[in-house]
């Protein structure tokens, strides 16, 4: 340095530090690295995440501790307010420095890394070995036993006591058991050494064993006196075969089956010899050391890269993992043996004895492989009497029968034996209660009787005996209401009374009748013990099947009239009073029917109509008879798609509006019993209603109509009730009228009879219909109109039908012919005049009744009469009873808009359009078609067709009119045939059944008014008798 300074002046001064490089032009000064750019790096140069302890102030937000706002020291927290947060605080305070350290921090601070290790209890050499074995197994087989692993984790190792003992005795794991042995010098060593007794120079190699790998066996020769523990012998695992697999089956070998197992990542890629020979290939700039060589897309592909041959895999890989018995090359398999030998098996030298074969039995020649059921079994469901004629002893034995045959005492006599003692006591108590109430009822009945002075009326009380609710026994009031109730609702099927019930009836009220026998003592005539006695006798006789059951019972003291009256009463009573079950059932049905009122039509008619339809279709009478019409609601969307306005806007219903009632309800099978046509009389209680009717008749001066249904309203047809009306009519002394009446009555009766047979009508429907008619009758303006129209009618009829009537008086056959003619006339007339109004309908109904002027006179006279006088006239003239009754009923039916066979034909043309289509002309259709011969019909339809085709553009209605005219003409023609009456009957029944499907709309109000009337009438009746 000194020399250099000496050498030149310039180099005089001392240079300290490094030379700052000269600034080049254009080069910007380097910015000093900002704080945020400073990064912490670890010793490997990697960017380091700061630990709290090593990072120091370089950690955190831009190498500051804390946030953007700076370091926020922990604030004091009052322990008082934060007591609940104690845990949290504790946690915070319990943070240890280690929690913020990473691996390197541990390293630097000499903190030993902590690991989770298995506790001793859970480890042992044996377990480790097991683990290893399992690992091996996993690699070899597919079965991975996770369960055992989990068990190992959970269940601590328990060293068995045996092992513990062994350990104490000096045994170590891995050693065999037994006394220590001296290692024998292996024989082969000497053998092998002998032939190779060559001179060895230098270091001798350790004497090798036959098995080189078994290094344990190597023994220095001089250690002869050392004893060794015996070798640990692995016991042969004898696994019981607890599955149903075939021998040698292992299931799917995952190693072979899974494609992943095929991939050998470490397999050396095949050496391409061509590559080396051709020198540098590939990309122009060579491939870097760390780059993969790109696929040489232009290289000529060598076929050697492909598998050319299809060979069977020796490894059994062709089975794709399925373990099948492998071939074993070592086994010498005889040529005759087909198949593969199982692992570990060899063919036995001895051949098995062939199994003895049993050939199948030879089938008989006529054997057919089909089972034929014997006749007997087929008819098994039929009663024995039908199937087994001579094998009477084969009848089925009941348990009791068998018991008796074996000499056992019958286990139980009745259901009561099953009842526990308490229950029996209760029953007794109930019976007593019943007896008491009965006596009470008697009193009450008397009281009632005295109040209403019902001398003749049978007591209509039914005792509802309810075992489970004896406290609900009828109170007086309840009975009273019931009384009126019953008079209104006549119970249905009386023929179906159980014999037991009858039995109960025959016994007196005090008779010891078990409750369970359905023993409901119905005592309609309890007020009059003598009468009741007669009634009981009568019932027994009826039960015995004696035809004229009343005759032996009748008391001699009574007059003929009384007798006949009582007879009728009894007959009625026997029918009315039924066991409670029937009562209940009728009740429930009634309830259901109220709900169903609207919808019952289609469902109800389904059964009856099917046959009618079939009949009609058979007779090729298509049209009204085969047609049904329902309201149908299309879906809103369907309408839109069809471009049709929704016929029922806002309706939620889709499809046919149906009743929601379960199809298999018991109530569907309950029917009201039919009336036997022979019995037309009512108990006088029901006459109450009759009186009501009669009153109404008086008021309106028009005879009441009666429905022709088999229902309560049959009751209303009671001749007793109707007598006054007839009386009044007879006074007119119009022979033609009388005759006509009686004729129509006959017809109508036949009609009703038919209905009775076919129909079990429900009460409410009938009521509704009747109430309808009544209300319409009460309208006086309509009546007046009807009078007018009927006047007109009368005139027309006079001109047409009078002649024949007069001529044929007294000859029933001709009468029958004439009757229909006259009604048709007014029908056509009014049809022509085009008057189609309610009044005309009314007139139509009245038209069936005879000469109106007479009637008017009559009714006006009649109107002055009081109820009592009318009733006094009862039975004076019985010949007209039925006639007027049926006339009335006929009218009623026509007014009810339900076409009966007879009335309909008359009224067809007249009020057709006013009525629902189905009802309107079905009757006429029926009669017409019934009469017309097939030829006629064909002719007609052909005509019609021709018409249609010729004048296809003509308006439809015109056509209809024409056809209607035709029909009318036809009517006239056909009615002259003598068969008329008969055919009418048949067709009438058809029409009626159809008509029942129709519902007249009824509301509750009408029902109520109806009920009121009936009850009122009952009171009137009582007064009258007084």
């Amino acid at each position, binding site marked *: 340095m000194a020399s250099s300074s000496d050498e030149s002046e310039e180099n005089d001064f001392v240079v300290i530090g490094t030379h700052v490089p000269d600034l080049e032009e254009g080069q910007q000064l380097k910015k000093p690295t900002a704080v945020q750019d400073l990064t912490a790096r670890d010793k490997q140069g990697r960017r380091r995440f700061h630990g709290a302890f090593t990072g120091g102030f370089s950690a955190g937000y831009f190498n500051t501790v804390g946030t953007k706002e700076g370091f926020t020291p922990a604030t004091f927290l009052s322990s008082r307010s934060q007591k609940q947060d104690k845990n949290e605080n504790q946690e915070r305070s319990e943070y240890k420095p280690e929690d913020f350290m990473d691996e390197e921090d541990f390293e630097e601070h000499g903190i030993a890394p902590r690991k989770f290790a298995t506790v001793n209890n859970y480890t042992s050499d044996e377990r480790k070995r097991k683990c290893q074995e399992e690992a091996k197994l996993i690699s070899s087989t597919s079965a991975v036993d996770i369960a055992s692993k989990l068990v190992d984790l959970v269940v601590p190792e328990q060293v068995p006591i045996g092992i513990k003992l062994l350990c104490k005795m000096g045994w170590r794991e891995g050693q065999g058991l037994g006394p220590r042995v001296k290692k024998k010098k292996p024989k082969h060593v000497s053998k092998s050494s002998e032939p190779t007794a060559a001179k060895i120079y230098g270091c001798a190699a350790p004497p090798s064993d036959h098995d080189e790998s078994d290094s344990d066996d190597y023994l220095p020769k001089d250690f002869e006196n050392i004893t060794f523990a015996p070798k640990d012998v692995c016991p042969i695992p004898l696994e019981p075969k607890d599955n149903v697999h075939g021998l040698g089956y292992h299931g799917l070998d995952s190693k072979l089956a899974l494609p992943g197992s095929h991939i050998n990542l470490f397999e050396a890629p095949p050496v391409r010899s061509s590559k080396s020979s051709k020198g540098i290939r590939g990309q122009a700039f060579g491939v870097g050391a760390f780059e993969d060589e790109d696929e040489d897309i232009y290289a000529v592909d060598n076929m050697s890269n492909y598998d050319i041959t299809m060979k069977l895999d020796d490894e059994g890989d062709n089975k794709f993992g399925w373990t099948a018995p492998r071939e074993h090359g070592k086994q010498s398999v005889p040529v005759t043996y087909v198949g593969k030998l199982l692992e570990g098996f060899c063919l036995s030298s001895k051949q098995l004895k062939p199994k003895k074969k049993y050939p199948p039995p030879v089938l008989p020649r006529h054997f057919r492989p089909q089972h034929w059921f014997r006749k007997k079994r087929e008819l098994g469901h039929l009663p024995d009497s039908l199937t087994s004629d001579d094998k009477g002893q084969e009848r089925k034995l009941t348990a009791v029968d068998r018991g008796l045959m074996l000499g056992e005492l019958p286990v139980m006599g009745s259901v009561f034996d099953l009842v526990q003692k308490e229950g029996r006591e209760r029953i007794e108590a109930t019976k007593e209660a019943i007896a008491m109430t009965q006596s009470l009822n008697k009193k009450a009945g008397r009281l009632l009787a005295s109040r209403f002075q019902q001398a003749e009326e049978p007591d209509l009380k039914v005792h509802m005996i309810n075992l489970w609710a004896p406290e609900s026994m009828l109170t007086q009031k309840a009975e009273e209401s019931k009384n009126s109730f019953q008079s209104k609702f006549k119970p249905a099927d009386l023929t179906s009374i159980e014999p037991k019930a009858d039995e109960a009836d025959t016994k007196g009220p005090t008779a010891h009748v078990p409750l369970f026998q359905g023993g409901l003592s119905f005592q309609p005539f309890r007020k009059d013990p003598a009468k009741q006695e007669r009634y009981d006798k009568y019932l027994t006789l009826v039960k015995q099947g004696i035809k004229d059951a009343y005759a032996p019972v009748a008391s001699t003291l009574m007059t003929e009239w009384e007798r006949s009256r009582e007879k009728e009463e009894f007959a009625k009573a026997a029918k009315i009073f039924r066991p409670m079950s029937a009562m209940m059932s009728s009740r429930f049905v009634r309830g259901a029917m109220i709900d169903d009122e609207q919808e019952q039509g289609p469902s109800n008619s389904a059964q009856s109509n099917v046959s009618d339809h079939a009949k009609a*279709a058979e007779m090729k009478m*298509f049209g009204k008879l085969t047609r049904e019409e*329902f309201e*149908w609601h299309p879906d809103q*969307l369907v309408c839109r798609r*069809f471009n049709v306005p929704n*016929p029922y806007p806002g309706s939620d219903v889709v499809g046919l509006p149906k009743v929601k009632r379960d199809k298999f309800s018991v109530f569907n099978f309950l029917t009201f019993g039919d009336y036997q046509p022979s019995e037309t009389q009512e108990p006088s209680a029901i006459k109450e209603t009759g009186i009501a009717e009669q009153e109404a008749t008086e008021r309106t001066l028009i005879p009441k109509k009666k429905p022709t249904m088999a229902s309560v309203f049959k009751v209303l047809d009671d001749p007793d009730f109707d007598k006054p009306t007839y009386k009044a009519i007879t006074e007119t002394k119009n022979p033609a009228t009388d005759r006509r009446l009686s004729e129509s009555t006959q017809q109508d009766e036949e009609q009703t009879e038919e209905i009775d047979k076919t129909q079990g009508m429900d009460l409410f429907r009938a009521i509704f219909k009747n109430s309808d008619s009544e209300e319409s009758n009460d309208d006086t303006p309509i009546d007046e109109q009807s009078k007018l129209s009927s006047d007109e009618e009368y005139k027309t009829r006079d001109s047409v039908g009078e002649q024949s009537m007069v001529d044929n008086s007294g000859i029933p056959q001709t009468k029958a012919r004439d009757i229909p003619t006259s009604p048709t006339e007014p029908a056509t007339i009014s049809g022509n005049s085009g008057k189609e109004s309610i009044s005309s309908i009314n007139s139509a109904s009245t038209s069936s009744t005879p000469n109106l002027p007479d009637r008017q006179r009559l009714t006006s006279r009649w109107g002055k009469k009081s109820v009592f006088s009318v009733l006094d006239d009862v039975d004076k003239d019985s010949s007209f009873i039925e006639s007027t009754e049926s006339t009335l009923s006929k009218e009623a039916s026509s007014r009810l808009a339900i076409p009966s066979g007879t009335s309909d034909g008359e009224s067809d043309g007249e009020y057709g359009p006013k009525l629902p289509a189905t009802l309107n002309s079905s009757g006429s259709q029926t009669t017409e078609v019934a009469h017309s011969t097939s030829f006629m019909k064909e002719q007609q339809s052909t005509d019609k067709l021709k018409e249609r*085709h010729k004048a296809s553009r003509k308006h*439809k209605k015109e056509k209809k009119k024409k056809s209607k005219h035709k029909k009318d003409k036809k009517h006239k023609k056909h009615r002259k045939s003598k068969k008329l009456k008969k055919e009418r009957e048949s067709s009438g029944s058809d029409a009626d059944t159809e008509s029942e499907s129709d519902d007249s709309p009824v509301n509750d109000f009408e029902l109520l008014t109806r009920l009121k009337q009936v009850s009122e009438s009952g009171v009137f009746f009582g007064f009258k008798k007084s």
Partner: protein
Amino acid sequence: MAFPNKKTETIDCKQGAVRSVRFNVDGNYCLTCGSDKSVKLWNPLRNLLLKTYIGHGYEVLDAQSSGDNAHICSGGMDKTVVLFDVSTGQAVRKFRDHAGTVNCVSFNEECTVILSGSIDCTVRIWDIRSRKHQPIQVMDEAKDSVTTIQVSDHEILTGSADCRVRRYDLRMGRMFSDFVGKAVSSLKFTRDGQCVLVSATDTSIKLLDKDTGEMLNEYTGHKNSNYKIDCCLNHKDTHILSGSEDGLVYIWDLVEAKLVDTLNHETSRTVHSITFHPSEPVLLSASGDKVFIWECNQMEV
């Protein structure tokens, strides 16, 4: 001549038994439904197979092409109703809700819905325009298998094996049911829409007045006791044609109800499906695996 009387062509459909043959709307093409699960579109006059529509899982029993010839609907024994696109031949929609074999299918006039009648006693209405898979309405009034269906602009006419012809009037919102005595096998509206031609299995075809249900005429002579045999009217509504179980097609005069002619198929097999050209006297009939084309050899006067 208003009815065909000469067999001009026989098409071997090569699709198993031909379950039904149907003209399209204008009568230029026809569809055949085969028992090999396919529907084939033909030009019958040129004997040319145009396309085969595959998509059914079982025998196809009925098909109809839409008014714009863009779609084909078909129903079959796989209980599905399939809507095919005519040009691509792909099944556009499959409606599976029927519980049984679909006997008959029909578009409405606007081809916005498909109506299908099935052995499960229901008629289901499927909306093509929505993506819903459920029918928009199920008409389950029938008590037995619905065998045939016919749709007019506002009426749906169904015939079922419970011997009833049901007519649903959408405008009136009413359903009319006519009892015809025997299981209905085929139904057709007349072209004036006033009458309904009903063929039942009692060997008679009836012409019923639509409004009253009265029988206007009856045509007998053919045999129909076991199979669902089609009947139809000719293009002018002057004659009535029906297949028969004796290998003939019977032709009656509509008004006279006289048997005018029979078309002999020279086979004893049932001629079960027939379809009449909408405007010309051309009849297609199917028997066995063949479709026969019948034309009129006389010029119309």
